């Protein structure tokens, strides 16, 4: 079970708690997690990635095990601690606009 923690705006949009648990079939990658998240919460479609290019939105960041993995390949398998649920997969809204 993958544990995903979302920023407040996304949890409100999804009507979900800040942390949600997801079943991810197959290899656990950034793309697989976002796919599973959008499937479970359709309101999040287009919120994390541009719906046309499917690229991560510029002000959205992904962290795993304390590391910013936003610029890694979407298809790279994530660390065991994320796969096992020991660590959260963090979706972070970039601090900007101040």
């Amino acid at each position, binding site marked *: 079970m993958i544990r995903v923690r979302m920023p*407040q*705006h*996304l949890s*409100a*949009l999804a009507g979900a708690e800040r942390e949600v648990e997801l079943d991810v079939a197959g290899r656990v990658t950034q793309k697989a997690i976002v796919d599973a998240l959008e499937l479970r919460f*359709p*309101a999040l*479609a*287009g*919120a*994390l990635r*541009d*719906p*046309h290019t499917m690229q991560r*939105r510029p*002000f*959205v960041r992904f962290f795993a095990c304390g590391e910013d993995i936003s610029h890694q390949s979407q298809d790279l398998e994530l660390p065991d601690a994320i796969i096992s649920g020991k660590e959260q997969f963090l979706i972070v*809204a*970039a601090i*900007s*606009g101040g």
Partner: protein
Amino acid sequence: MAAVRILAGTRKGAFILSSDERRKDWDVSGPHFPGWEVYHVKGSPLNPDRLYASQSNSWFGQHVQRSDDGGRSWNPVGNLFSYEGMPGTHQFYDGSLRPWEFKRVWHFEPSPTAEEEVFAGVEDAALFLSKDGGMTWGELSGLRESDSGPLWAPGAGGLCLHTIVLDSLAAGRIFVAISAAGVFRSEDNGLTWTPSNKGLVSEYIPDPQAEVGHCVHKIATHKTRPEVLFMQKHWDVMRSDNAGQNWYEISGNLPSDFGFVIDVHAHEPDTIYVIPIKSDSEHFVDGSLQVFRSRTGGYEWEALINGLPQRNCYVNVLRDALAVDSLDSCGVYFGTSGGQIYASADSGDSWQAIVTDLPSVLSVEVQTLR
């Protein structure tokens, strides 16, 4: 007893203000979608409890919310706005070419004849239609793909389609306004379009006969006389008596003819309202807030200041932030960049601030509930 509901979009959420027909005491609900920019909220003329809200921010993109109970609860609906075909390019500020890219919804216009139909005006400028209550959206691409489309360039706020006027008498006739392209008219429900900008003169365009490139801020009409259109252009207040085929200036004695809003009285087709500001850089008039009303369809204007601040006031009113109700004594409402919403229950003769400290107001719509 009738009631009035104000739908306000702001920089940090939506607010709904409700009153009975006396329009003295107001209940305020919100913020709905706190922290998000809400460019527009509008209700269906067929089912006033059906509302659409445009929710967006730079982090998480565009989302569309729908309410079926007058704003007590909301549900996200479709937010996929895909341009038809290969969208190509439009002009950028510096004359370079930029690919068409969807950014946000500026304006919703629910159909007055089909409850599940709603139009959306978006940035980069295009017109979309949903036939299923906002669940899915399809572009009416004849507008963007018309001859002038590649020549359109953004105004300071972006290349936005911000105004949609559905003709109340001529079936199939639609007007839209785009900054900074101009007005376009369709006679076939949005399939094909022609520019409707003859008579507009914009100093920044070298060609005085330019068919497009005009920074139209807002157009409005009266439902009983839809062939007469009123326009607040970047500079100049304009009028057309022939459904946009020609325009002529009616700025008359206004202290400035720059502004964003324009609207028409609910029962008097020749009574119109504007809120002038000094210029494109000074979005105020000498520290005072003044609505101007013409009862003669233009040229002759009177300042309406009773109840409005006349000292140290430097707020602006954006293009979608003025609206009227349809009670017997027509109510007029507007929201400011300072977070105030002012209301007049007597056609503008007197005003009261019904809220004073909202986030910066982007849009105001009014529903008259009977």
